[in-house]
């Protein structure tokens, strides 16, 4: 299991991405999947640091990764005001295509097999994402 507390900085985003990529590679995920997992973690950490904790030095981001026989589960918690995953506009909609922002969580969904969020008490959001070994194998073969 991987478990770390990160500062609300962009350096933490790089570090967290690297840690989880190493963890995924160590547990048998192929290169393409490691890249996708790393990118999903990067986008989620950016969300936590920038939009959740707003770079507040007093707020931390928790990163947790664990493997089972089915795959890899990653949990990222921030201490922000919280947000609704379903409230994020669809970046593929014609009117949003040329928007500068709004693709991060879309990419997490695209690269992982499951993504869901829950509000934390008294504040914060937890993003949980799963990458299955089985789907990775199918995607790699496909």
């Amino acid at each position, binding site marked *: 299991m991987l478990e770390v507390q990160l500062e609300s900085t962009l350096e933490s985003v790089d570090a967290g991405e690297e840690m989880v990529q190493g963890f995924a590679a160590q547990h048998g995920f192929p290169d393409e999947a490691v890249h996708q997992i790393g990118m999903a973690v990067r986008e989620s950490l*950016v969300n936590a640091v920038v939009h959740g904790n707003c770079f507040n030095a007093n707020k931390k981001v928790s990163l947790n990764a664990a493997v089972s026989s089915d795959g890899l589960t990653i949990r990222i918690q921030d201490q922000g005001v919280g947000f609704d995953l379903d409230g994020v506009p669809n970046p*593929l909609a014609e009117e949003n*295509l040329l928007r*500068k922002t709004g*693709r*991060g969580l879309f990419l997490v969904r695209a690269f992982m097999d499951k993504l869901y969020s829950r509000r934390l008490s008294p504040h914060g959001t937890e993003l949980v994402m799963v990458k299955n070994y089985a789907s990775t194998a199918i995607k790699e073969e496909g």
Partner: protein
Amino acid sequence: MSIKTSSRQVGEATIVDLSGRITLGEGSSTLRETVRDLVSKGQKKIILNLEDVSYIDSSGIGELVSSFTTVSNQGGKLKLLHLQKKVHDLLQITKLYTVFDVYTDEAAAVKSLG
């Protein structure tokens, strides 16, 4: 590793050779400043050569879109050249492949700018 840029002139086109990662922070701000600088100097036919760009995140994609609209709004054109597979895949996933003109041949990209 962040991003490095250098510009060269081929006919009327300015080709910006980029290398490294275009991610939130230094990478995306360097791209933004480079394109804004060119536009402010009247360069409106721009090709971004991404041959040595190994990684782009959503912020980098946003910066590419922003560069595209900045140049277009000034009556110019911005084209992309030599995408690596991961970058190509990202543009497909985000449907931006339908927005950008992407080339695999530099001479063709230059010619497309007239």
